[in-house]
């Protein structure tokens, strides 16, 4: 059976039917697919049945993402790791609360963000309100009619070189740390973790318009960092 088909079957099975299904039968049905290939939803079902392996696979699957997201809120990898552990404990405690209204990933990330925010509150550097109002490009680079007076130089082609691309990706990673945290969390979720804008809004509990503004500011700043870096070379 395809993993997808199995998961679809899971979603379709009415609650009453599931209650009647014996524990052993449920286990058999859920273990058709090896854990590391099983979709999230199936792993969650297994976890509800007390399957440790399902837990390990889920933890591994989201480890890097969760640490990266946690790092948006708290200083240092050690604290980020604590937040991730706290999150998993909260996930285990809240297993029965998951209703499948969002994806498992969105649900996990939302718990994580709430934990990380609480933990990070103390350390969080204060954010100037103007941060999100800053223009994408320095006004001085346009003439009074709004046309470029200092247009962007051409460097995109240089990124075809693997080494250059790696170096610049490293530069972006560092620059991410300097983004205002609200921009950083949106850029992390959208452009590193690959969430959709709907998912990001649901994880961060912000509006779509707000999400877009933060994404715009964050991406614009990162572009500027690259431009400066290429200009220096």
């Amino acid at each position, binding site marked *: 059976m395809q993993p997808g088909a199995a998961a679809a079957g899971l979603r379709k099975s009415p609650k009453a039917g599931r209650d009647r299904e014996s524990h052993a039968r449920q286990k058999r049905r859920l273990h058709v697919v090896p854990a590391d290939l099983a979709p999230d939803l199936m792993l969650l079902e297994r976890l509800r049945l007390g399957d440790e392996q399902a837990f390990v696979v889920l933890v591994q699957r989201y480890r890097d993402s969760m640490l990266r997201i946690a790092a948006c809120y708290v200083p240092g990898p050690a604290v980020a790791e604590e937040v991730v*552990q706290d999150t998993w404990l909260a996930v285990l405690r809240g297993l029965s609360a998951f209703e499948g209204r969002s994806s498992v990933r969105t649900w996990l990330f939302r718990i994580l963000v709430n934990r990380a925010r609480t933990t990070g509150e103390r350390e969080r550097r204060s954010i100037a309100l103007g941060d999100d109002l800053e223009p994408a490009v320095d*006004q001085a680079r346009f003439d009074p009619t709004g046309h470029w007076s200092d247009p962007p130089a051409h460097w995109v082609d240089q990124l075809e070189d693997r080494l250059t691309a790696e170096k610049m*990706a490293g530069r*972006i990673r560092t620059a991410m740390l300097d983004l205002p945290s609200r921009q950083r969390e949106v850029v992390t979720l959208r452009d590193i973790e690959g969430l959709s804008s709907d998912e990001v809004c649901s994880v961060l509990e912000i509006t779509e318009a707000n999400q877009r503004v933060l994404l715009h500011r964050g991406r614009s700043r990162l572009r500027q960092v690259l431009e400066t870096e290429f200009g220096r070379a």
Partner: protein
Amino acid sequence: MMRLRIRRRELVCQQVVELVTDYLEDRLSRADRRRFDFHLTGCPHCTEYLAQLRATIALTGRITSADLTPPMQDEMIALYRQWQQGQGHRP
């Protein structure tokens, strides 16, 4: 009102760089999108700018976890077992 609309018909570069995310997110009205595309056809600088932003997004997506701490699998298994014990027998 009318005059404002006429003035808005053509975008200038400074507006384009602020609309670029709405453009990529497909959030522009059809009229604004047309204005945006029209501006690009005549403006190599803004075309360049858009390409740079796309390149930035692609590059951000390449960030990996090179500087993350080593796996915490053992701790997580301990966490799980501890939790399960506290749960007693599960259904």
